[in-house]
């Protein structure tokens, strides 16, 4: 495997792995805080059991997220030393603040996981909330760092030297808000649907229905609200992309010709050689409308972008279509859920209703991976948009292919291990939590 491809693949693999665990580590504490709160208020031990069962799952995810994140902070240098040499001081601000956020998160987690019987109950509850807030903060910060790669600001490039560095300005780059918003909402949507799906399965199998139904409802409501907001936030993101990275937008849409009434292209197979898209649905003027709020203004197409500055069109386009399709699906499910909640309480006993959520278990995470593919592949060939090419940033060390195979094997094994452990957690629910007396106070 060629060194450059291997480095890109390893980066993508590591981030794609980490993002799943970090989303869960970021969002689950909020679910736990709700059920923990319900337990403290109602004294119903089922809520305590839900909280405890979740907290064990979270501990597993948290540790995996933490080690994979640690690996990432080294990998940035191991794979892209030239990039880090120049970018480190510029986009380092969010990373240094993130350090604090992680630290607080880790400390609060220590209190939460080990403090069930040691502290005042509300202090204990509060430490759980702190885990969630600091996790979310760190997610926002790290995405601000990524946003800088998409819209680099806060420095000047003079004769190949990076000068006039302003880390604060770099952190609050134009893309940070739209990306951080979209990512945070995505984390809630993806985790909410995933957790809800697992519990829906158990409800359908009539196992510990009381336990799983409550867990399902807490997770689902978070996921549902996020899923309904997500397309709105996606629209903000798309407008931002159009402004700062026309090449990425063009690749997302497989939009080859710049002309008035630019069409929105749905589906289809991009044919890069002949600069057209086969078998697609075209909605004339819609792309112009989405980007500029009027049907006529032309949107810059790939024909206006030099070939050597174009990202891979097909991958970006497919990934974008996939994300949007799944987003629409999740929004639809969300609306259905709200109807059930307000009007059709009996749906919660219906197999078809539960089945929909069971099928939807992985969709949020697939959308997350697809979305990151859009962002990262769509930025190619740049590692820092318009400033540094990815190929110029890669490590000179040969043989990264072996490293990539090694990481693939490790992450593959870890994923299996996590799934295995989770399966065992769920299997043990009846044994641990079904005894009539509450587990402990």
């Amino acid at each position, binding site marked *: 495997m060629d060194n450059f491809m291997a480095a890109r693949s390893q980066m993508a693999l590591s981030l794609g792995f980490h993002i799943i665990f970090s989303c869960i580590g970021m969002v689950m504490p909020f679910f736990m805080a709700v059920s923990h709160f319900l337990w403290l208020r109602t004294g119903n031990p089922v809520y305590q059991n839900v909280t405890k069962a979740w907290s064990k799952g979270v501990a597993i995810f948290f*540790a995996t997220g933490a*080690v994979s994140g*640690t690996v990432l902070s080294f990998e940035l*240098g191991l794979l892209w030393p030239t990039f880090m*040499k120049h970018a480190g001081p510029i986009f380092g601000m969010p990373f*240094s603040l993130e350090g604090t956020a992680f630290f607080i998160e880790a400390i609060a987690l220590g209190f939460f996981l080990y403090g069930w019987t040691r502290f005042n109950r509300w202090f204990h509850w509060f430490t759980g909330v702190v885990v969630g807030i600091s996790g979310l903060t760190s997610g926002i910060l790290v995405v601000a760092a990524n946003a800088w790669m998409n819209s680099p600001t806060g420095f000047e490039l003079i004769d190949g030297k990076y000068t006039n560095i302003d880390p604060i300005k770099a952190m609050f780059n134009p893309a940070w808000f739209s990306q951080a918003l979209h990512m945070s909402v995505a984390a809630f949507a993806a985790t909410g649907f995933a957790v809800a799906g697992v519990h829906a399965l158990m409800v359908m199998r009539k196992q510990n229905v009381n336990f799983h139904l409550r867990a399902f409802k807490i997770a689902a409501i978070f996921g549902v609200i996020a899923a309904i907001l997500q397309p709105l936030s996606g629209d903000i993101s798309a407008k931002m992309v159009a402004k700062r990275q026309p090449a990425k937008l063009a690749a997302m849409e497989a939009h080859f010709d710049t002309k008035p009434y630019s069409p929105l292209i749905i589906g289809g197979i991009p044919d890069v050689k002949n600069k057209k898209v086969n078998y697609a649905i075209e909605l004339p003027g819609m792309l112009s409308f989405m980007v500029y709020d009027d049907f006529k203004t032309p949107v810059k197409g790939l024909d206006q972008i030099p070939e050597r500055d174009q990202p891979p069109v097909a991958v970006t386009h497919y990934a974008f279509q996939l994300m949007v399709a799944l987003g629409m699906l999740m929004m639809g499910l969300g609306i259905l859920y709200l109807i059930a909640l307000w009007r059709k309480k009996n749906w919660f006993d219906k197999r078809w209703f539960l089945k929909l959520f069971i099928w939807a278990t992985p969709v949020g995470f697939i959308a997350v991976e697809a979305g990151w593919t859009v962002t990262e592949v769509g930025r190619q060939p740049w590692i820092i948009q318009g400033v540094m090419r990815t190929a110029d940033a890669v490590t000179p060390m040969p043989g990264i292919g072996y490293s990539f195979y090694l990481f693939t094997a*490790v992450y593959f094994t870890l994923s299996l291990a996590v799934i295995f452990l989770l399966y065992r957690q769920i299997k043990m629910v009846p044994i641990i939590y079904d005894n009539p007396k509450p587990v402990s106070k």
Partner: protein
Amino acid sequence: MIYVVIIFLWVALLLYLVMGGADFGAGIIEMFTSNKNKSRTRKIMYNAIGPIWEANHMWLIIAIVILFVGFPVIYATMSIYLHIPLTVMLMGIIARGTALTFRNYDAVHDNMQKIYNKIFVYSSFITPLFLGIIAGSAVSGRVDPQATNFMDAYMYSWLNWFSVAIGFFTVALCGFLAAIYLIGEANDDSERKSFIRKARLMNIAAVIAGSVVFIASVKENIPLVEWVFGNIIGIAAVSAATISLILLWYLISKGKRYIIRVLAGFQMTMILLTTTYKHYPNIIILKNGGHLSLIEDQGAEKAIQSLGIALLVGSIFILPALFYLVWSFQQKPDGESEVESH
């Protein structure tokens, strides 16, 4: 502000060495524990380490972030030429962190536990070994940006007697720290005795490994003797460490569990001080005699400034909370610990 940043870097490394070291050491101790006592040792260890495990390894992350924000050239150079040992260390970190968590949170207790334990123990050994190798390589003068072939650039930069000896020295120190720490956690006299025995063993191992480091430095033409004994601070620190070691052994027999921890921590401080003082501010010594320095190779001024402020502000939040965490779990466990309670 650059000095604030350098102090934070040094303190982060020290704390990682002490807290993380005790944590790694616990796995090393487990390696040398007879099967019969393993599960008890494990339980004591977990009660002691579980709550702060996550926080311990944050020191490493803080150090790395300081390096890449404040000293990007140093970070990039290490990443390129020490790629291989860094990767091995990362594998160790992954294996260790997940095995520790898995074995405590696996809902079913069966033969899988054996596998987790094996992984945990080996990775507890490998990680500090390579951490030491990396630290040794930084000052060994083998990092060679002008190298033209793979072996010189990426293998011999770290694969030499000196670096490897430092690796083993680090392992022994970790084991020693853990044993000292665990003496205070033991529930009864026989456990206490067994930890004291291990502390003694690790102490001997550290002395042997330390001597090998000196021999290797002579063999590899590294002026370690001069770094350590050629200046007043070095001599003072070595003497202080030696005296505190004697004191420590005396106090162990008196059963002072907190003071011996402080003394062990003090020794680590002295060791890190001697090994860094003489060539401060240079932290990487290159083969051609050049070096990378914390002063000359610092990043842009604005970056250092905001990094320093972030660190200062961060520590206002972190230190009290961390202190409270460590303190509340120092109070003896109240019988039932959640993890075992199912």
